[in-house]
């Protein structure tokens, strides 16, 4: 990967990051006054999904083309836990996250046996396998998916059927996960991950077990994608095949690319842009696919830093 515009000083001030973060929190806190809250929840779910994906691609240099399998299977797990077992929503989300973590451990262990382009192809093929699996086994409801998933009562007390309560729940999950990713990126672990991205052999020669680091990054990324998927299935009260399909894997790549890979806030912006676009162009049917394809091509040819990456480059600060 082209390294994003990071200044070399290690002890770089993070103050401006906190300002941007506070701004993001403020926007998300006030926005439901004007914007349809379900739409905002959708944006946050996809933003978390894209942030999780970006942890792997932007900071680990690993392009997974099958991340939909973590989003989708966690969605099924959470929906099942809520509808059939009657669990509280916080446990449903945790259960979905755990299921995706286990799945990503298996998939990651297989996929990191090959590098670069092969890694992308293997993750794509394995996610297609998961897709067929979800299509055939009875508990996912096949083409119908799991419908009418109850949102339940948070901690057995707060009824999430109320959109306002649900919004706060999603916001809390999103912000907590975002802070976690931020911490991971700036931890010693994150630094080693970047070292592996820049030059794997050199990292190996420094004595790091690069395979293990890549696997851990893969599991964190997959698990957080699962958190996003589980939350999403509670928001929409639906878990369906759309979320495990390869087109979803493509969409998360696009969100990250548009926002700026290797930036912290980029995927959030990218997710907001793409979800908004899908919302406005929904009546155009297959044209949405065409537009997404065009954005892909333009980003790769002329706009590789992405929106936030471009701003960060102008300001000479990391975002």
């Amino acid at each position, binding site marked *: 990967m082209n390294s994003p515009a990071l200044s070399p000083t290690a002890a770089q001030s993070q103050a401006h990051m906190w300002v941007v973060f506070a701004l993001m929190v403020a926007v998300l806190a006030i926005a439901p006054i004007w914007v349809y809250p379900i739409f905002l929840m959708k944006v946050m779910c996809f933003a978390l999904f894209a942030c999780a994906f970006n942890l792997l691609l932007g900071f680990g240099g690993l392009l997974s083309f099958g991340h939909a399998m973590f989003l989708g299977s966690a969605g099924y797990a959470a929906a099942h836990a809520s509808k059939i077992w009657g669990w509280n929503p916080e446990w449903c989300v945790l259960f979905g996250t755990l299921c995706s973590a286990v799945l990503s451990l298996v998939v990651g262990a297989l996929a990191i046996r*090959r590098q670069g382009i092969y890694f992308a192809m293997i993750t794509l093929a394995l996610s*297609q396998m998961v897709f067929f699996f979800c299509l*055939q086994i009875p508990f996912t409801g096949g083409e119908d998916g799991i419908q009418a998933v109850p949102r339940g009562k948070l901690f057995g007390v707060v009824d999430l059927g109320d959109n306002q309560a649900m919004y706060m729940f999603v916001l809390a999950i999103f912000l907590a996960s975002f802070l976690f990713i931020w911490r991971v990126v700036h931890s010693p672990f994150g630094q080693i991950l970047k070292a592996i991205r820049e030059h794997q052999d050199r990292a190996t020669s420094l004595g790091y077990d690069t395979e293990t680091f890549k696997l851990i990054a893969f599991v964190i990324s997959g698990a957080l994608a699962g958190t996003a998927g589980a939350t999403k299935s509670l928001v929409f009260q639906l878990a369906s095949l759309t979320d495990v399909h*390869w087109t979803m894997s493509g969409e998360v790549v696009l969100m990250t690319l548009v926002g700026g890979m290797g930036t912290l806030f980029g995927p959030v912006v990218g997710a907001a842009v793409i979800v908004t676009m899908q919302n406005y162009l929904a009546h155009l049917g*297959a044209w949405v696919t065409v537009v997404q*394809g065009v954005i892909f091509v333009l980003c790769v040819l002329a706009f590789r830093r992405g929106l936030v990456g471009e701003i960060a480059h102008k300001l000479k600060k990391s975002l």
Partner: protein
Amino acid sequence: MDIFGIPLQAFMGQLLIGLINGSFYALLSLGLAVIFGLLNIINFTHGAQYMLGAFVAYLSLTHWGVNYWVALVLCPLVVGATGVLIERLMLKHLYKLDHLYGLLLTFGLALIIQGLFRNEFGSSGMPYPVPEVFQGVFNTGFMFLPKYRAWVIVASLVVCLATWYVIERTKLGAYLRAATENPSLVQAFGINVPRMITLTYGFGVGLAALAGVMAAPIYQVNPTMGADIIIVVFAVVVIGGMGSIMGSIVTGFGLGLIEGLTKVFYPEASATVIFVIMTIVLLIKPAGLFGTQK
């Protein structure tokens, strides 16, 4: 007569379908391998270009009455020419960057092409008639073999072996292999490497279009026909390893057969068997059956 409790007719029928699928896997993975060898790009548009081949054949038949034989030559040329344009206008700018950008660009192109065709033709398939010469069946005594299917297997085998021969045994192929190893040195010897790269991409794309024309009478001509097959072909490529031309041919046909056999013995797994095999191969021989780990 039965084989493992399955009527011979059904058994041979599925084996034949497996061989047909295998022919397409072989042709497509061969094209991917040729492109990857020189460009270091995984051509995600390959499935869309396979679909384009079928569509050019279908449209030229319905609009201008172009028959199958002409289409067999014309479509690969037309679609190959669009490939040349893509390489000249876009891919060319990505060679200095990480290989992943090539994957992303061709993925975007695939979305555009498939989206445009879905807008224009919907998702339902259009029939393409089997050419007259190949209507009817051979009666081989133990099964009826449709003539067209026999032709597809033979033709794709011939095309695959011819490609192998050109790349491994001729002077042109020697240039190509040399350029794969060390492009700047080959250029220093006075060979126009950029043009070779362009033509190689065009050739790989042409192979995909050829597969599309051959598939048109068997499967229906459909805008999404390339989307799912390309993922299977990726798995085929991972299993075989892209280092060897013969490797991708053998793996393509072999996996088609295995898929056909799975349909006989355990139909539920027929959609996933290739991915399962990929998993096993990754565990035992990560570089692929015919590949070498760099």
